[in-house]
């Protein structure tokens, strides 16, 4: 049986939900079952946003067993195969979903919460984010995704496609690049730019 769970987290307005939607549509494209709830705690309002992406498929010839195939909307503790965090602090906050084999992809651009703005709390250093997550899994990768998008495309609009490219290059995603790109073509205007962003993500991850 194929079972692969991805947790995407970020802040409202960063596109965590649409990133999840692309990964889910890619599954439909490929005939995989997919499910996963979203937390939209005030999308667009600095709230925490998460999207669960849970792929399931019986091996060919295997009879699907309801109990084994069961996938609720939420990934249990320690069960994420991959985490994509659009923001460093949120990666730490959702660390409980990681296990020794999880692959973690983090956009290294911090967004300051009100508590930090008001001087009540301190934002953790990026090195701390990295080292604390390494207690969970050795596969922790920070990338300057915002910077890459601004630098190459003069906008933040390509952040998600770059992240998809990175995820595809690093993880054992059960969906193919072709499926992801087919969805990107359907969903986004300006396919060519997004295809380049996807490739940029792949190259960045391979470096």
């Amino acid at each position, binding site marked *: 049986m194929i079972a692969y769970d991805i947790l995407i987290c970020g802040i409202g307005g960063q596109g965590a939900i649409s990133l*999840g*939607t692309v990964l*889910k*549509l890619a*599954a*439909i494209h490929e*005939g995989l*079952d*997919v*499910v*996963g*709830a*979203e*937390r*939209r*705690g*005030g999308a*667009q*309002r*600095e*709230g*925490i946003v998460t*999207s669960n992406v849970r792929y399931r498929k019986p091996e060919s010839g295997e009879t699907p067993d*309801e*109990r*084994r195939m*069961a*996938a*609720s*909307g*939420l990934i*249990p*503790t*320690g*069960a994420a195969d991959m985490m994509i965090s659009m923001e460093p*602090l*949120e990666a*730490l*906050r959702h*660390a*409980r*979903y*990681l*296990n*020794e084999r999880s692959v973690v992809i983090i956009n290294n651009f911090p967004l300051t*919460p*009100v*508590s930090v*703005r*008001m*001087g*009540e*709390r*301190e*934002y*953790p250093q990026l090195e701390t984010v990295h080292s*604390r997550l390494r*207690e*969970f899994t050795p596969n922790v990768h920070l990338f300057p995704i915002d910077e890459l998008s601004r630098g190459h495309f003069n906008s*933040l609009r390509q952040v998600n496609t770059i992240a998809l490219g990175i995820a595809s290059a690093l993880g054992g995603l059960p969906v193919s690049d072709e499926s992801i790109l087919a969805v990107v073509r359907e969903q986004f205007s300006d396919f060519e730019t997004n295809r380049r962003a996807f490739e940029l993500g792949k190259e960045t991850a391979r470096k």
Partner: protein
Amino acid sequence: MNPLALNEPGRTILAMGNDAIVRGGLEAALGYFSTYPGTPASEIGEGYRSLKHEFPHIHAEFSVNEHVAAHGAQGASWAGIRSMVTMKHVGMNVAAEVLHFAGYTGVGAGFVVVIGSDPGATSSTSEQDDRWYSLHTHLPILEPSSIQEAKDHTSRAFELSEIYNLPVIVNAPSKLCHNIGSLRLGNLPNVFPVKGRFERNPERYINLFAGSVANHRRAMEAVKRLQGETPSLGLNRVLPGSGRTGFISSGINYLYLLEALSLLGIADAPILKIAMSYPLNPDEIASFTRHLDRVYVVEDLEGFIEFQAKRLLYDAGIRIPIIGKDVFPAHGELDVDLIAGRLSEELRTPLPKRMTRAIKLSNELTGDLPPRQGAFCTGCPHRATVYSIVKASDRNTVFAGDIGCYTLSCLPPFRAFDWVTCMNCGVGIAQGMLQKIEGENVIAYVGDSTFFHSGIPGLINAVQQNASLVLIILDNKWVAMTGHQPSPTTDIALDGTRMHPVDIKGLLKSIGVSYVRTIKPFNIKASMAAIKEAIRVGNGVRVIIAEEECALQYGRRVARTPVEYEVYYQIDEGRCQKCNECYVELGCPAIRKEETTGGWRYYIEEATCLRCGACHDLCLNSAILRTEILRTAGMESL
């Protein structure tokens, strides 16, 4: 093409739980839909609205409140048209009056009530368990477990409603409404009914005196019949297993339970999956339970199934432990972790290592992370209004809060709410309190949509009882909190169509409010002056309308028309005294702090700034500069 409109039975699409409910209605040939938007169910209304070209025969509306919405759906059902009303769980309190009668009178065509519940209250002021209403409304409840069942049960509910002559409830918690995954489509009907016909039926519809008693009896008999026939409906089912400990579960908790049991390595336990949690059939419960030593009931919130099962088993003479809310909390949201954790203690079975390791590591970690809370969007007029309210009033002012995006004023940096409970709790509670407190200024908040939902009677009462308060109506023209549905004050739709907004000022005048002022929130100084003046006047009901369209909707609308001038706001480092007014007190997310070679500075992030001008107007040091650039042809390419 909207995938929800595809007539390709068997095809799998990606759908949200709410979309699946929409499709369920389509497959059942729905003809009337009404709702008052409320998270988590709002997208159902959005769904029907987006399908108006493909299904022009469906009347779909955002009603003024849930009471009106439920009546509307009842009317259409009596006209022989299948109808659906949706609401969030607390909307049921508003619709409850209508729905207590709807069971008595019965239906014309199928009448389905969809309730989006919110265990954990992640987007609500309460997590009430609406299922308990059915013990006195007599309305059957379906609890889908998955996106697929959300569709299938919704279609089925119409059928059951007609067979048993009762409205049927579909209860979907937020984690199902907002679950997105595979959905296999069924058949769309070939013909949709366009017009219905009202068949008089005084025996049922004149629900008066002895007629109401007869209807009460009829409703209870209908439930009895449904209860008896439940096993033949194939809704509830048993997953046979080994061992003498069994489980009963419903809704999304069923999947949580399956996952929890596999994590604990007891994946073959016997399970009774309840799809219809009211009424329960006594034999189904008894025959499942008879050969077991103990049964755990895993369900949301307050143990509705556990309560009924215990009663039925008592009558059947079965006396084994039925364990529910003693182990799984009746408050908050359940999930796989919580269920697995509690069962691991109960059954003395260890959790998998992977899980205990993650719990241990994250407990050491997450305690000291800076919390993140909601904040107003960049460029939100409410931020400016609340800033002005806070600055224009003193800290002894009593702030009567209410429900809408402006509820965020209860959070830092403003902390300008003294209470928030249900819709229109602001003026309503304040006007009573004012009869018994003295010497305090009271400022009440209300949004446009909340005001029209149920705020007018409270305001009339305040005027008649001569309560002395300042009411700020934050009129942003949309039901913004739930995803921007039109409100009674919406004047221009996103596509530019002119609407028919209610004239708030005319309404206030006819109610007898003589003090009415309008402010433009981004003009901070003028707004503060107007609020101070209203406080100073100090007698009777004074209303200030803070009128400015929601920033997101404004942005969406205006993005379609090119602007003549580009406006920029920048902080002049030389003038900035770092007084913190803009960065902390106003707290606009576009204003940022950065280290520089000589220390640090505040700056405005151009890509995020929405050019509202609030910071420019409030800075006492004139440090925020406004630059206007005339756009000419050719500038586009710069």
